[in-house]
Each structure stands twice: as C-alpha cells, then as structure tokens.
C-alpha cells in the first residue's frame, strides 16, 4: 500500500463510482494518512473478509521489501494471506480480484486465485482493453459512439 500505485488509483476510482472502500495490511505498509481519504483501515484480514463483497488482492512488492517492513513472506501469508480457509469462514461468495502479477502462496493462495469466485483473468483482459482505450483517447482519438453499443449487444 505504501508503495502501490494500484491501491491509489483504485481508491480514487472506486470512491468516485460510489463504492465503500477499506484497505487491509500490516501497519508498516499502510500510511496512517490513508484514513483521511474517506476509506476504512482494517488491521486484520479476517475483518476485511467479513466486511467485503469483493477483494482486490495486491501484490506484495518483493523488490521493495528491503526496508524491512515485514519479517518474512511466510509470516505475511500466515497473517495476511487470502486463503481458502479464511474465505470459507465468511460463508458467502466473495469476488476475488488481483491486478497481477501474483505471488502465489504469499498474498493469495493458488486455490483462491484459480477458484470459482476468481475474476482475475477477465480483470486482466479488461485491463488491457481499458488501457488501450485510455491511450487512444490521450493520443487524440475520438470515441466512436456508434461502435460502443454494438459491442454491448453481443
């Protein structure tokens, strides 16, 4: 979170769309100021799972762990990992997202990433289309309003 661009753009975007947003992780990786952005900080993953309809699991940025913000990947998984056991305790389906690339067995277990509630692959596919559209518009392209409804019809 401390280092994550994904977290920041997700927070802005989701709030703008009217979603309630909470973030969860070790306090070493969550700037306290985030509480002032209009979101909730949940210190325990169990609480986050109990609270959420959808989880966007963010990659633990291994290359930025040199600062000693967490003691080990193993403990990160034990304390903050999104695991099948933890999700099962929620007793309802929670949509699982991950912007990738995943550290399987660290922030997310494989049986969750590949499980029935996971929309990670469509998320990646859509992400490519959205990026293409944004780049197209930024490059001066105009939206083609005639094509868009057709795409919806399929």
């Amino acid at each position: 979170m401390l280092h994550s661009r994904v977290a920041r753009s997700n927070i802005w975007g989701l709030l703008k769309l009217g979603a309630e947003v909470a973030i969860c992780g070790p306090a070493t990786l969550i700037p306290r100021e985030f509480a002032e952005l209009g979101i909730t900080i949940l210190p325990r993953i169990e609480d986050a799972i109990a609270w959420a309809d959808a989880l966007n699991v963010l990659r633990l940025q291994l290359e930025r762990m040199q600062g000693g913000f967490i003691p080990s990947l193993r403990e990160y998984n034990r304390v903050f990992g999104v695991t099948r056991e933890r999700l099962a305790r929620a007793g309802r389906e929670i949509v699982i997202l991950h912007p990738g690339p995943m550290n399987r067995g660290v922030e997310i277990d494989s049986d969750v990433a590949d499980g029935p509630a996971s929309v990670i692959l469509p998320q990646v596919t859509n992400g490519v289309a959205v990026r293409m559209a944004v780049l197209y518009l930024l490059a001066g392209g105009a939206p083609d309003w005639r094509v868009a409804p057709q795409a919806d019809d399929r």
Partner: protein
Amino acid sequence: MTELLIRGGRVIDPSRNTDGVADLYIKDGRIEAVGRNIPVGQGIEVIDAAEKVVAPGLIDLHVHLREPGFEHAETIATGALSAAAGGFTAVCAMPNTDPVTDSQATVGFVVRQSIRAGKARVYPIGAVSLGQKGEQLTEFGEMVQAGAVAVSDDGQPVATSHLMRTALEYAKTFGIPVADHCEDMSLAAGGAMHEGLIAARLGLKGIPSAAEEIMVARDIILAELTGGHVHLCHMSTRGSVELIRWAKSKGLKVTAEATPHHFTLTHERCLGYDTNAKMNPPLREDADREAIRLGLKDGTIDCIASDHAPHHYDTKEREFDDAPNGIIGLETAFGLAVRELVEPGLISLPELLARMSTVPARIFHLPGGSLAVGAPADVVVLDASRRWTVRREDLHSRSANSPFMGETLTGQADVTIVGGRVVFNRADRPVS
C-alpha cells in the same frame, strides 16, 4: 479438580477496588466465591490466612530466566520457583537467551519448560530483531501464536529509530506492546555506573542520565507517530519520569516500569566497588530515586518490575569494569516495595498490589491481576508486616547476586497459588 479455601484473610483486589476480611473459595482452577464464612465440605484443603493479606498473584513484566544458554545462572524451573517464592504467579521472560528467543520454536521452548516446571506462569517475550542484532524484524505473528506476549530487544535498546517505528507499527496487528531498554549506546559505551560524583571519585567511566532520556524521548515520539504501544523498561532517571508524564498528558500509549533497586538504592552503593551494585541502567542519584518514587505514587510509572538478572558468581565476582550488569530480584521485590513505599506512607498496600499485579496484567494483556469470580485462581497469601532478613540459603534462585543480602525487609509471600494449585508454601520450608 481440587478445591481450596483461603480463610479469614484481608482480601485486597485492586481490579475491583475491594479491601476487607473475607474467605476466598477456589474451584477447578478459578475463583469460585469471595465472601464471609463460606461453608466448606469434607476434605477441602483450607489455608488459614488470619492476619494475612490475600491478593491477586504478583506479576512481573521483566525477568531474565537465562534458559536456554546460561543454565549455570538460572533455569526456567529455578526462576519460576524463585518467582513463586516471591509471591509472583506470572513472570515475563526476556529474550536475550542463547539462542535468542526470536522465533516460534524458541518461544515454544520457553512455554514448554515453564509448563514442565509447574511453578509461576512464564510468558515469553520475543525479540524485536533476529538475533537481537537490530537489523531484521522477527516474525511477531508466529511468536504470538506460540505464546509470546510482547516483543523486546532487552539487554540492548531497539537499535534504530526505523526499526522501532516498524516494530511499533507491526506490533499493532497483534495487539502487543514493544518493550524497550532505553539506552543510547554511543553515550553509554564503556560506562560501568552512573555518571556523577561517585563515578568521578571511584575513577569509573559513567553512563549519563541523558543516555536513557534520549531513547525515552525517541520512543515517545515514535509512539505518537505510529499509534503503537511502547512499554519503557526499568526507568531510572528524573528526566525520564518528566518525559513520561509529558507523553501521558498527550494521551499516548506509553507505559513504564521501575525496579525495586532504582527506588531503593543510589549510586553511593557502588562505593567499595561491590559488583552487586552494578546494573544497567545504573543506580542513579537521590533526586532520581525520589522522582521514581513519586512517579510510582502518581501513576506516571505504571508498575514495578524486578529486572531479575541472575549471574553466576564466577562472572559477577570480577573487577567492577568487567562484571556483568544486574541483580536477582524476584524474592526481594515485595519486601523492598513495602519497606520503601508503603511503610513511609508514600503509597497504600492496595496501591502497591495494583502496581505489582493488576496494572502489569493490563499492560501486557495477561490473565490474572484480579480476584473477581471466574478469574483464574492466581492468588498470593502475603504477610505484609513480617520483618525478615535476606539470606542466601533461604532464596530459591540459582544465583545469589543481590546487594540486599543481610538486609531486613518488610513483607513476604507465604503461599502462592497458580491456577488453583499451591506452587509454593513457605510453611513447607520455614525461614529460620
């Protein structure tokens, strides 16, 4: 399970602000009832506590039990027995063992040894950094799951501000405090006692009060930055007391302990080069001792901890400069506290029991510290007015490094009960 009746004692429970003559009935390891003239059935063990004080077992947040690694000085079994003889039903063991208690496996070892000993409860404190090297954070979560109740690099300070910051933040996830030994090592380097007149006279290098106060200030500022809970170990200077008072006035999560030797002795005890007067932090000046006492009175210092630090005489009986720091303290803590704080009228006996039981239990979130019905039956029967002389052969620690040998103290534990089981009874081994 066994039932036990403690009859006719002055029952003091600081957790509920109660104080009066009553019986205490224990069943299945818990307090079953407190009241007058509780009827007893056949075959129930009865302890006569007339003229005695019945209180929640004392709790010590800061001891060194030396196992693993230094079993010639103390073991978890001998330390837990010494604790029980001192009236303690629970102690927290610092991690500066060999190997350092810095993983779930080493934490689990301490837990297992304490269960095997079956005396006072021993709660492990995990190291903040791997090997207490001040570099990499340990796995707090795994250590807490294995039984750790706090983290500390005691013996040394948490080495850097960055490490302290991350430790305070990371500890929040697990709801545990970070206990710090406050010492600026660059200022303290080579020091053998308090920097002052006596050090000058003895020709020993001193440790200035500033070495402690700088770290106290650092920790308070980081507690504010992180919202974490810092527990300041063995406070010894008047400046530290002022800083803690300031922190508390700001509402920060800062707690502090002081030892019996710091509210009893001053650096003058080092005259004669007795290495039993060598400790870290060192014995300070009269004004410091007074400030610690007043801090305990007004609550700026939350609790009393012994910093029980056994050393074999082979290592302690050396030149003052080379001798290790620390003294044993579990069996003299209560007697010193009554003599130094209660007898002069500084604090009342119930207040003392709060600072030695109820408050430390709250600081580290431990069970105990209460005689409420349903609470674990960790209870001590004390003779709060007995005068007794500290003698080597009457103590239970494996080591004897104490500056209080031969002194007369006031107040002593007679019976110590952990989980409804009598783990120490002085009547079994009368003091001559």
